[in-house]
């Protein structure tokens, strides 16, 4: 298993770094290239016009939008509950959660089923791109100056080529305290 993954990493890192496979010269003079073992593989996806990254360790699967059942007394970003092969999971509209401009569900809309704290959650995103390996040095802490309402959701930024990936902090995004609507519960007369 490990060997296979290494091989894949080699091909991917080669193709992404623009390096070619061994050349004639290499064969003549011998070659050595380091294959990095510490790359973090991230899924890149779009949400509200921005590019995000999610470690594939957190990802269980990617599905097309499924039917959901709305759940009363929940925050606006909770789409409802969905059913993934018998397991009922909460579905989160990520754009709303991050207070971005929500796009309409389109053909590229996908649901990322993520595993957080032993439970599955569905994140509805505008579209998924790719799985890319990112070296640790490409990660940087979220810039403090970013401010804004979203700052708390961002765990790190990661440079990938020309682009900047926003790596989300799932613990914050999926904080159970935010799921229940603040004013839910006993209230005035119905």
């Amino acid at each position, binding site marked *: 298993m490990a060997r296979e993954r290494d091989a894949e990493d080699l091909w991917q890192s080669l193709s992404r770094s623009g390096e070619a496979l061994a050349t004639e010269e290499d064969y003549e003079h011998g070659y050595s290239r380091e294959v990095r073992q510490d790359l973090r593989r991230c899924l890149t996806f779009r949400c509200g016009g921005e590019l995000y990254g999610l470690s594939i360790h957190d990802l269980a699967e990617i599905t097309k939008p499924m039917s959901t059942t709305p759940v009363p007394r929940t925050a606006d970003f909770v789409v409802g509950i969905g059913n993934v092969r018998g397991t009922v999971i909460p579905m989160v509209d990520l754009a709303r959660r991050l207070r971005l401009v929500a796009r309409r569900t389109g053909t590229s809309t996908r649901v990322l089923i993520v595993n957080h704290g032993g439970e599955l959650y569905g994140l509805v995103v505008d579209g998924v791109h790719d799985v890319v390996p990112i070296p640790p040095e490409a990660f940087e802490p979220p810039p403090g100056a970013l401010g804004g309402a979203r700052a708390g959701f961002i765990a790190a930024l990661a440079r990938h080529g020309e682009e900047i990936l926003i790596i989300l902090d799932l613990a914050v995004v999926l904080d159970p305290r935010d799921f229940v609507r603040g004013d839910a519960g*006993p209230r005035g007369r119905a």
Partner: protein
Amino acid sequence: MSTARPTTEFVPEAQEVVEEFSRRLLELEAGQRTGVEEPESLNAAFRAIHSLKGLAALFAAGPIATLSHSLENALDALRLGRVPLNAATLDVLFEAVESFAALLAAHEHETEGPGIEGLLGRIDALVGRVRPERAATELPGIDESILSVLTEYEEHRLRENVRLGRTLYRVHASFDLLAIDVGIEGLKARLKEFGEVITYLPSADSSADDRIDLDILLGSNAEHAAVADALASEGVSVHPLVREGAVREPGGSTSAGTHDVGAGYVDPERVLDDPEVGVGHDVSLRSISRTVRVDLARLDQLMNLIGEIGVAQATLVDSVDRLRRRGAAPDIARELSGELRTLSRKVSLLQQGVLDVRMVPLGQVFDKLARVVRKLGREAGKEIRLSISGEETELDKLIVEELSDPLMHMIRNCIDHGIESRAERLATGKPPVGRVELRAFQRGSRVVLEVEDDGRGIDLRQIRESALRRGLQREEDLREMTPQQIIELVFMPGFTTRSTPGALSGRGVGMDVVKTNISRLSGIIDVNTTVGRGTTFSITLPVTLAIIQALVVQTAGQTFCIPLNSVLESVMVTRNEIRTVDGAEVITLHGKTLPLCHLARLFELRRQASPERSRIYVIVVGLAQHRVGLVVDDLLGQQDVVIKSIGSALRSIPGIAGATELGGGRTVLLLDVAALVEEAVGREIGGAAASASSPSEVTHGA
């Protein structure tokens, strides 16, 4: 073995043994009262403690092993008649049961258990108090060759039987070597009807190689002919050994029976030499128990799978229906629906089967309660007779577990608050002994548990004063409450009528805990009381929680499931039947005012501009002692559903208990009736008087 085995197996197993021990003690105590001593109870208690000792050693549970070792000695002494069995002895033994429970709990949580030195001292004191050597009962007519092979215990029992004036018989039986364990069990059962089996002795005159002959010493009050007739079967013969008369004539050592028996016995040394002969009873290593212990989680898994099969099947039914409507391949469609019907029958049988496995009789809890009554009665200085019925009634294991605490609280309340002191009872012309009755029975798909006492009943004035004193209610609200509402105040947190906390109850925890626990099990609790005559608490519970029957309802275009066990009834009402009382909508049902609560409003569901219907459905739901009418647009039917978790993020949403799948891949929410009713009732507090107001104040609603 250097490492102890995991304790997960130990605690439940040990608990079972301790329960068995406690059950036997109760039998012994009952025997004490009636004067019929059953040596088997004492033996069983001894065996239980013996196996507990072994278990505890195996799992390195030090204090439990120490305590059981010491108890084993005491029980052995009791069994041999060296220590008298009386109320004081039983007290110490019952104390040990409590200690075991505490020690086991400590063992499970890996905490320091309670000290047992005091108890150990008391147990050892029992053994130390050896009965002065009685002048040994003369055992005329019993050959020394018999006496020499008897163990001390057997000799004790022999003497006891002689003392009780029983006739001793020698029952000679011959068994096929292969069927000996079955044969002996059968014979033992028959012998028990006549008296006590004192010992089994291998007999010398084996008739064949493939048979084992036994001589059984039986002490009985029955006549020789009666015993002989009853036991007459192949290879069994009965001979009187010592006649009653013979015993009363000391010195008559050469009665006719002696030779008869003496000849029949083998030399004890030969028994030891020849292992083949020695294997009399308990020869088989195969365990008699035909049960397996199963983790409830595994049953839950099975239940979930069955639920999913059910869902798949419902989807299939749907597909076949569509196929038929389309008229394609009608013969195949017909065949399919036939097979589907068979499948659904089998699935529901399978489901029932798994549910049945989860069922345990309530007797387990009742046994514990009997102990509690005994202990509490003693502590409160009140004599109480507990009568139990319906202990064979079965409930889901989980429910039974959850029930023991509430039931204990209720029993405590009966003893502490209900039953009067002896003097008080006599003064009011009641029998001096208080009566507590514990009943269980099945009513439809529910189980009803009742705790009844013949005590002083609940005094409404006292409740009112107490509620006022503790600031739980305002005076003006109290004045307008119905008697039933006042009684229900006992379920409020912090409520107690005691000014000083008693040792038993009266700490202000209790009935509200009972209510919470019962509500969690979707149970309903009712109180009935008559001052001076007694109080009855009745709890109505669903039989199981794993798969529930649900009412499928629709409101504002959304589908929900309501656990049927919290639904009391559902009625259709027209809008003009709705009245408003102080701004709250109510209807009159069975002559009572029922507050209404619109599900769509509670959940703020948006209606798609549908016209207000003239007919609505009211689902009467109950939580503990409250009743609320939940208003929905439509009833879609009733269905068995498997409850699924909606995850920790959504778990705390008030009013929603979980989700479930209906056919066709639809996921719907399951309502948490308890929370909804609580909400509705909580809202009512501001206008507590509202629901109690007289009909004349009722105005016509919208």
